[in-house]
């Protein structure tokens, strides 16, 4: 949850001034033994909860992109966010998805969106 303007930091950069929306996903990852048992019941091993934050950015200037693109292009990031289950700020190592910038006017881009997915299951 985005509880205040300082509650989403990625690689030391406060995302608060750049976001229009942040989707906090708590995705369950199931092992390959998932399926049904002989009684027809659903069974499986839960590998863990892998939090994912999808960041949607406002229209960005060249200067904004100068700050953000190293983060978006890096293989790994350190993300600090407020976890709704744990009810505290948590730092996790993430990997990021692809991103694109849509240019409809000179000097500004829009529609930039990027996902940050935890590399490890959420701890206790």
């Amino acid at each position: 949850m985005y509880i205040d303007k300082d509650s989403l930091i990625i690689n030391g950069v406060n995302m608060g001034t750049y976001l229009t929306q942040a989707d906090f996903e708590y995705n369950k990852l199931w092992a390959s033994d998932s399926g049904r048992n002989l009684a027809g019941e659903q069974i499986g091993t839960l590998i863990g909860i892998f939090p994912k934050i999808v960041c949607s950015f406002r229209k960005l200037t060249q200067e904004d992109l100068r700050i953000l693109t190293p983060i978006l292009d890096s293989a790994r990031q350190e993300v600090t966010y407020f976890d709704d289950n744990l009810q505290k700020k948590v730092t996790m190592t993430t990997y990021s998805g692809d991103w694109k910038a849509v240019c409809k006017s000179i000097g500004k881009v829009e529609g930039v969106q990027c996902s940050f997915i935890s590399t490890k299951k959420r701890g206790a």
Partner: protein
Amino acid sequence: MKQHSKEFEKEITLLGKQQVVQITYGDVVLTSEDINSATPSYEANLLKSVMKSLVLDSNKDIPLRTEINFKYGLLVNGEYEYLDYGTYIVYSSERKEDTRSYEIKCYDKMLWSMKDYEKLDITYPCTIVKFINTLCKKLGYTLGTTDFANKDRQLKDDVFDGINYTFRDVLDDLAEATASTIYVKDSTLILGQPNDKDIVLDTENNLTIITEESQEISVEGTSYGETQTANATFEENSFKDINVNFGAKYGPINSIVLSRSAGSDNVFLQDEDSIKVNGLCELKISDNQIMNQNDRSDYLQEILSTLDGLTYYINDFTSTGIMYLDLLDVYSVKIGDHVYDKCIMLNDEQDITQGLEEHIETNEPEQSETDYKKADKTDQKLNQTTLIVDKQAQQIQGVINQIGDRSDKKTTITADIDGLYSKVIDTEDLTKIAEGLTEVTLENCYPGNILELHIYGNNSVFDGLMPSDTLVPEEGLMPRGDSIIVITDKEGNSKEYNFGDLRVLKQNEETFDEFVLDNNKAYIIRRIDSDGKTLVNEKTEEIGEFKIPLGEDTNTIKIKNYTAKLYVKYAIKSTYTDVFATKVEMNTSINQTADAINLEVSKKVDDNEIISKINQSAEQIQIDADKISLERKRNQLNK
């Protein structure tokens, strides 16, 4: 069964279980972050030793021969509860460059037995329990089982020396002889049996095992303060929806067969009542070095007592993960209306990756069919046919022995690396013994002298009279003090033989004087003095030469005027007695090696021996005999 809580049993079957593994050695702790997968497994059989294995896919290497402890953890009520799998030894480590990880193979401490057998520091004969204790000390184990089948049976010699056995092979043979499955728990050697005892753990973490006889045996241990029933029942929620197979019920075992090499020469013991009700179910033990001598049938009773009635279901299934069952645990399965009430853990493989899969399999022992008409209950009998493989001497010996009333025939065939040897011995005893009180009847007599006569003292036989000076005996009264025996032939003709003036033959409890006629010479052995006391050294009184001939067929021999025990040995009629001998021994032997064949036939008639020999090699044939008879139409001898 590995110790665990009731919550663990429930959580492991539920959707969304979360698991970890942990490996510790020294100060190092490897967790699920370092271990990509772990596969603990074992393959067991009844009456065998078992070595458990653990295969790891690890991001970190572990040095060879490191002793590691492996645990499996399950998230229960917010905390991880661990099953302790015990100690393993790292056996090999292989770097896999494609996954940038290490495949590490580990085995439990049964690995210490995987080396060549060395003679133990022990004095023979010794009991099996002492042998196992000494073996444990040699290998670094502690013996954890004190009561097992055949534990007090004696090992006469070291049967494992020089036959290229490993200690593991020795444990396999011991497992068969003790009717157990041998495994190691950390450093403790256990001779195990299928376990369906209830285990109760109290709140102070003490373990109490309740036996079938409702006895309570207390054992110290750590626990979660829960009751754990070894004979657990599993239902559909423990099984995957594929590969769940249950076969027929094996057993009940009601026949134990011991066989020597090539499944030959069987001895057996059966529970006849069980066979009548359930049909025959045999368990065959072959080529066991401990049970390879002629006392092997002595082992059968305790083996049968231990295994008699053992029954279990054959199965092969994949479960969603049970994890806490251990080797030899007995469990039940209920699927729909079908109840498989006795299953034994013999084979288990747990695949712990991101998910969990456990494959459990129980097979029946290798099937055997014994021809019981050609088997026997013991080797200790008059007519023997045995085949013994002596691996230490590298020799196979076959013996066929038939003992009759008056005959002993034996054929021995011995094969070793150098050749094949056979010997036939046929011994006929042409004498017979008759015993009785005062009078005995001798049947089927061959005409000739009595061979032996013994009269045993009883303080009255041959006793003399001491009449007073004034005594006048009446006519017809026969005085005592004689030593007359009477021989009566089949026609009723009697003849008396008087051995002269002998003193009474005395007796003192179990010791007695003895009159002996042996080989036509008579004498008395005095063992009691004139006061009736036993002599320190017996004395012999020579009487002289006596021949007491017997007529053909039936004769009776009687002490005329006294009562006493008689023993008579005499010659009987047979096909051999036309040579006037009492013992005829015929020996033939054939010795065959790669270079030559040597034949020898000898015939011994009392002290006379007739021998003929033929020695044949590639270059010549040599015949050594008193007579040579060549029968052909023409004999032409080269100059």
